[in-house]
């Protein structure tokens, strides 16, 4: 477990953050810039000393104001990947990688260099690396210090879209290949959905909510924090079938099966889907004579209290035992015409899904949008 309970006063800004997250997989700290995300990570790393509180990782107490425990940063064994890389300019890439390296595992260096594709860079200086290369070196440098937890403070924020795509697979691969838990700071929801297992919402120096990505993104009350434009639901599915004749693959979730273009992965592969609210069409009766084949019967759970022309509806298209939340964005006019209210039965038609492919066996993770059929 990662336990954080810190209070600090930073100028006019008051930080009072408390959350518990599993020490496995990727935990995202998500919030606007200035919400206090970096301060929380700095408190974890020991670069900021809270006025009061407690910080523990995997049962080892790193900071406890009551028991007067405050491990210095160099004894915390937390790898920190900064937004700006912070490579040492007077060391070569190899020197940077080895700066904090533990010599317990002789093969580790070669493995990490291979995993991050750093072989050709070893003799270069940080001064003549591209932004993406710098971040890869920074990731390698942190991992080679054999941390029990990796902290990443917006590692992609300083990169352009192409460079981001260069780094994201490596971060996704960390989960599969290295099994190091990660705390990932971001203000970009697409990164969070793509990478994170646990989501911690930070707002105004406080923790607004903690939970799985699926649970928090489907809550209306958190919409102001999780972002309206990116509104959508995240659904866990399993690859269950291939339709060779029509070149389709079937993804099963409690309550139904989604058909998408053929995915070249073995059956049984877990896949995370992201379905935007704007890509869901509602019908009050079972649709007939439509080209969309992904239609699921469900029930309206919640209607967002919104005054604009558009309204978001939360639907349950799962089973009584395993509810599956889906968002649909329709106009107020449609809401009135279809006479939808909380509890109304409804049919949801899914036009497009965004597929987050986790990295089976540590390979590249990818994200692609798919028409759903």
């Amino acid at each position: 477990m990662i336990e954080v309970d810190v209070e600090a006063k930073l100028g006019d800004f008051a930080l009072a953050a408390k959350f518990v997250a599993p020490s496995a997989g990727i935990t995202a700290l998500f919030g606007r810039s200035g919400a206090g995300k970096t301060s929380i990570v700095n408190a974890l790393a020991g670069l900021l000393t809270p006025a009061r509180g407690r910080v523990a990782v995997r049962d080892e107490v790193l900071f406890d104001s009551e028991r007067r425990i405050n491990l210095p940063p160099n004894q915390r064994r937390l790898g920190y990947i900064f937004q700006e890389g912070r490579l040492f300019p007077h060391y070569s890439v190899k020197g940077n990688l080895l700066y904090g390296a533990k010599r317990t595992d002789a093969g580790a260096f070669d493995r990490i260099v291979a995993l991050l594709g750093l072989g050709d860079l070893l003799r270069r200086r940080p001064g003549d690396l591209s932004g993406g290369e710098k971040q890869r070196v920074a990731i390698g440098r942190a991992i080679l210090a054999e941390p029990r937890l990796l902290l990443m403070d917006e590692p992609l924020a300083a990169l352009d879209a192409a460079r981001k795509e260069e780094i994201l697979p490596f971060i996704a691969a960390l989960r599969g290949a290295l099994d190091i838990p990660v705390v990932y700071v971001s203000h970009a929801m697409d990164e969070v959905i793509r990478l994170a297992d646990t989501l911690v919402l930070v707002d105004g120096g406080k923790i607004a909510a903690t939970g799985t990505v699926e649970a928090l993104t489907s809550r209306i009350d958190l919409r102001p924090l999780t972002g309206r434009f990116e509104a959508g639901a995240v659904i866990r599915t399993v690859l269950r079938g291939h339709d060779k004749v029509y070149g389709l693959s079937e993804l099963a979730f409690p309550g139904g099966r989604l058909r998408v273009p053929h995915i070249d992965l073995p059956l049984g592969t877990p896949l995370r889907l992201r379905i935007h609210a704007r890509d869901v069409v509602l019908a009050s009766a079972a649709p007939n004579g439509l080209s969309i084949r992904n239609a699921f019967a469900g029930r309206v759970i919640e209607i967002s209290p919104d005054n604009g022309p558009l309204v978001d509806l939360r639907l349950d298209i799962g089973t009584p035992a395993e509810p599956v939340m889906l968002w649909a964005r329709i106009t107020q006019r449609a809401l009135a015409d279809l006479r939808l209210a909380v509890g109304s039965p409804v049919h949801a038609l899914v036009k497009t899904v965004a597929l987050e492919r986790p990295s089976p066996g540590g390979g590249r993770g990818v994200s692609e949008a798919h028409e759903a059929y």
Partner: protein
Amino acid sequence: MLTLTPVETEALLLSLRVGLVGTLCSLPLALLVAWLLARGRFVGQQLLNGLVHLPLVLPPVVIGFALLVLFGRRGPIGAWLYDTFGFTVAFNWKGAALASAVMGFPLMARAMRLSLEAVDRRLEAAARTLGASRWRVFWTITLPLMSPGILTGAILGFARSVGEFGATITFVSNIPGETQTLPLALYAFTQVPGGDPPAFRLCVIAVIVAMAALLASEVVARRLDRRIRGVP
């Protein structure tokens, strides 16, 4: 013309020795003071800052006189040094080194402080998260990154030491072979009839030494800087 007279050789070598010893001995102290001024936060910091810069603004004679009062054989520090270690700086080349070191100190400490303030503390924080102790961070990150400033400070201090006149002549007098450095020898020649030609030769030597020191500092600082910034 190209060969130096024994008097010139003696004065030049003495100057170099005085400058070198003075610079090397004050280097660690200047680094400490630079650290205190740049990183420390304590009562009396401004006072220390003023004290360090005093030799820059006071007449050198004042410094020389103060040294004489403090480090003379009967001065509080001088008497203690002599009684305890049998060591004295009064009227010998070590005194000349002390006087020139004091005069060069502000330049040295100032250059080091500026370079220390320019060191990116975020790099030091990154090194800490990689498991490095404060001590290791200092040796592997801070010191290398401020090395151009240390070098510039040392060379400036050295050049100032070699050229020191007022404090030296007040403190340790003008004794040929013992405290008569280049500028002091030059001054001695100007005080005797027919001394202008040898004084002129010493002038040229002084210019050559100073220029060499400045050029060397430029070249080495630039190379160090390039190394640090990682440009080949």
